């Protein structure tokens, strides 16, 4: 069982209660090493699971969300520090343990870490602040209302001052206030400022530790051969040559589950990774690919177009779409195609797991530390408290690291070998095994009224659905309509889904269905605007009451001089989307340079409620735009049941030289914060395609696109 003496906290009361941090320093764990340079040795007393204060006035804030580039490593402590009234640039940031009871969900997905945690984190900071004030009030024998907390100290009206370090012991003995007053947002000093991220210096000298850097004594390294045809199983194999490679210790069959389907592999375990990869090359395996190797790209699209003629399942309906389409003089119709995409975080999938007799331990890059804990506990029949999760920095996630499949392989191989095992996927494994962003066919139909308004619009999505990849249920769910706004005031509006089941595994990819559907929806709205001979931005505004959409559209028009004259050889396109609560509008400017069309400037206006760290939000928007633009130029293709593109040579992600000028404008707001991690991605493809149309009169309806082939 887990050695409880290693726990750094002794629990004294329930959830929001007090935790006494043991004063003596224990040997640093892998995760603690991440922040080793910032650590203190001074005795420290916890006021709750997020805050610990040293008698030397050091303030340690425990961050309960993994950092994969989204910047919550800094913005979560910023929220706590704001209410706690401490200097954010002097706090020590540590990753918390993975503990659902103490921290609730720790999953880093869907741009949720700020929007769902904002009130909780403020309350945690305010609770501790009030306890410190109460301790001072008691000492001075005055009322708490006569005490003020600021900059790590409590002061009173006669000028006495006690530091948090002097107060923390007494404060920790006090009852936890139930409803501490939260600050008036007008008084925010930290929230809304661009505070430098403390993880940045660790990422400029190689000090930051990622899952792939885990080094566990006695561990073996594993490389796994899997059928490129996703559901292929092993008929027979010969490992005699592999076992001859110096350093190779074992060859084991293993499997990983993904959305209800088990995927087999043959693993080579060695005392170093290189040996494992050499052993893997020497394996001889016969695969049973179950006829799935007959499926290629053409069949997928043929099937999708055929199925687009079926009725589909209604996911949203308003008015009477059938009647409205039937009575229209002319039905305008367009079909849009988006390909499969791979996540390709720069750190390939990896996991290190040790399954022992009565405990287990995990080291690695995961978006879901508690999920990994539950998964291992359930699979090996032990209590969750006997599973230690060391979650590190992630070398990118983009949705891929929310899954447990690669952890399952490491756990299974550790169980078989009786040793800790580190599994490392090659880039080719990462890119060809999936799960992928789903490909999508979107068929849109509309009828315009005499006065040029949209009377009816039907948007049909023909695609696989992440939540519904297994089983016989062929009914499409609402997940399929992600990113299709229903805010346009169209009297007859219908969104339909035609669910497809394919052997290609799919999963959450940055912005999910918002990365495909808006390409169709926002391009189609643009097509309708041109048919109605109305400016596309005005056309949108005329159909919108939603004040947030109206505001971002109006502001992006101003920022880009949308209504001004165009230079020769320049085109502009607009698109708008809501993702994770954030509303944004984007204008892409393209220029003609010889036969090439080049996006030269991308301007995004964001309304995402209260913005915690504007510089981080700008960084996220830049990154989202660049990932979105890459997905305009590149896609995966299926041949003989497998992905053709294996590595960056055939699946080139965007480079610095292809990167346009990016401007991000964040609007002031006092509304609760929305998610910021995917803003900008959904609008890139449609705004770019709309700009290409304005410049050339040609519609881009199929991605990926080579922009040198249009003129």
């Amino acid at each position: 069982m887990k050695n409880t003496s290693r726990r750094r906290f002794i629990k004294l009361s329930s959830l929001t209660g007090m935790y006494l941090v043991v004063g003596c320093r224990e040997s640093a764990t892998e995760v603690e090493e991440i922040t080793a340079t910032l650590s203190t040795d001074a005795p420290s007393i916890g006021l709750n699971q997020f805050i610990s204060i040293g008698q030397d006035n050091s303030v340690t804030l425990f961050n309960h969300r993994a950092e994969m580039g989204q910047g919550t490593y800094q913005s979560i402590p910023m929220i706590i520090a704001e209410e706690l009234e401490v200097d954010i640039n002097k706090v020590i940031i540590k990753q918390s343990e993975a503990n659902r009871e103490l921290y609730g969900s720790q999953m880093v997905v869907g741009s949720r870490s700020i929007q769902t945690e904002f009130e909780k984190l403020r309350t945690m900071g305010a609770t501790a602040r009030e306890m410190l004030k109460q301790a001072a009030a008691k000492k001075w024998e005055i009322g708490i209302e006569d005490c003020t907390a600021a900059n790590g100290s409590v002061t009173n009206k006669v000028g006495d001052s006690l530091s948090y370090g002097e107060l923390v012991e007494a404060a920790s003995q006090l009852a936890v206030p139930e409803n501490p007053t939260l600050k008036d947002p007008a008084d925010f000093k930290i929230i809304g400022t661009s505070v430098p991220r403390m993880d940045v210096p660790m990422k400029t000298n190689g000090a930051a530790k990622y899952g792939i850097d885990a080094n566990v004594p006695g561990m073996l390294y594993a490389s796994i051969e899997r059928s490129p045809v996703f559901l292929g199983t092993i008929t027979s194999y010969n490992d005699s040559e592999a076992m001859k490679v110096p350093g190779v210790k074992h060859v084991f069959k293993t499997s990983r589950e993904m959305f209800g389907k088990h995927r087999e592999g043959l693993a080579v375990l060695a005392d170093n990774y290189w040996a494992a990869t050499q052993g893997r090359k020497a394996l001889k395996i016969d695969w049973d690919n179950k006829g799935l190797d007959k499926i290629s790209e053409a069949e997928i699209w043929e099937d999708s177009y055929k199925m687009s003629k079926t009725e589909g399942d209604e996911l949203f309906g308003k008015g009477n779409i059938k009647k409205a389409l039937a009575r229209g003089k002319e039905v305008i119709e367009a079909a849009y195609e988006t390909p499969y995409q791979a996540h390709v975080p720069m750190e390939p999938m990896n996991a290190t797991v040790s399954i022992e007799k009565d405990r287990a331990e995990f080291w690695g890059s995961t978006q879901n530390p508690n999920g990994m804990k539950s998964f291992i506990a359930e699979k090996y029949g032990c209590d969750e408290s006997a599973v230690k999760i060391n979650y590190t920095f992630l070398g990118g996630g983009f949705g891929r690291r929310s899954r447990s499949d690669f952890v399952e392989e490491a756990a299974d191989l550790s169980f078989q070998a009786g040793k800790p095992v580190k599994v490392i996927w090659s880039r080719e494994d990462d890119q060809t095994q999936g799960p992928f962003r789903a490909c999508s066919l979107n068929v849109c139909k509309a009828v315009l009224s005499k006065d040029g308004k949209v009377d009816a619009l039907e948007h049909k999505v023909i695609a696989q659905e992440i939540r519904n990849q297994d089983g016989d249920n062929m009914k499409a769910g609402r997940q399929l309509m992600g990113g299709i706004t229903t805010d346009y005031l169209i009297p007859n509006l219908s969104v339909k889904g035609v669910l497809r089941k394919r052997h290609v595994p799919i999963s959450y990819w940055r912005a999910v269905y918002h990365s495909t559907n808006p390409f169709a929806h926002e391009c189609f709205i643009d097509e309708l605007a041109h048919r109605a001979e109305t400016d596309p931005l005005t056309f949108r505004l005329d159909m919108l009451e939603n004040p947030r959409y109206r505001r971002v559209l109006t502001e992006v028009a101003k920022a880009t001089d949308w209504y001004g004259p165009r230079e020769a050889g320049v085109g502009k396109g607009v698109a708008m989307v809501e993702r994770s609560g954030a509303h944004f509008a984007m204008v892409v400017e393209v220029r003609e340079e010889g036969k090439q069309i080049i996006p030269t400037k991308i301007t995004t206006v964001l309304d995402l409620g209260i913005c915690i760290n504007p510089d981080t939000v700008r960084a996220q928007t830049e990154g989202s735009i660049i990932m979105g633009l890459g997905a305009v130029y590149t896609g995966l293709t299926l041949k003989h049941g497998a992905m053709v593109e294996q590595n960056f040579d055939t699946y080139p992600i965007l480079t610095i030289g292809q990167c346009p000028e990016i401007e991000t404008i964040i609007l002031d707001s006092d509304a609760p914060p929305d998610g910021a991690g995917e803003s900008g991605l959904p609008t890139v493809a449609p705004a770019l395609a709309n700009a290409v149309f304005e410049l050339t009169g040609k519609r881009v309806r199929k991605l990926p696109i080579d922009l040198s082939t249009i003129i």
Partner: protein
Amino acid sequence: MANIKLSINGKSSTIDVDPQMPLLWAIRDFVGLTGTKFGCGIAKCGACTVYINGQPARSCVLTTGATEGKEITTIEGLSENNDHPVQKAWIAEQVPQCGYCQSGQIMNAAAFLEDNPNPTDKEIDTAMSTVLCRCGCYPRIKKAIKISINS
């Protein structure tokens, strides 16, 4: 297997490995310096960039045997206190997001600026297009390079 003597960041270490093993794995798994990263294994992403006798090289395709007797520099050896002008500019511009590719970005940028201390935008694009970043830190990389030129 053979004993190979490597000189990394001015320190020498002898490891017993297959001379055909890429230097990347020797540095990471045998010498224990993990700042140099594995990204693609085919010299296409640049995350594994190190210097061999001062010249940038992709350690994922360079055999360990071929680097014996040469001076290897990794990100850990670029500066003692994270204060190389490029590192300072990277911190000032808050370049990294996930940070995984940044050792390669910084090593490549530092070598490029050594050869070309006053590059044009186009030269920056060409030189830095060989190192990939999935988070999309490119606008900041460009700014940081310009800052370090001016310092």
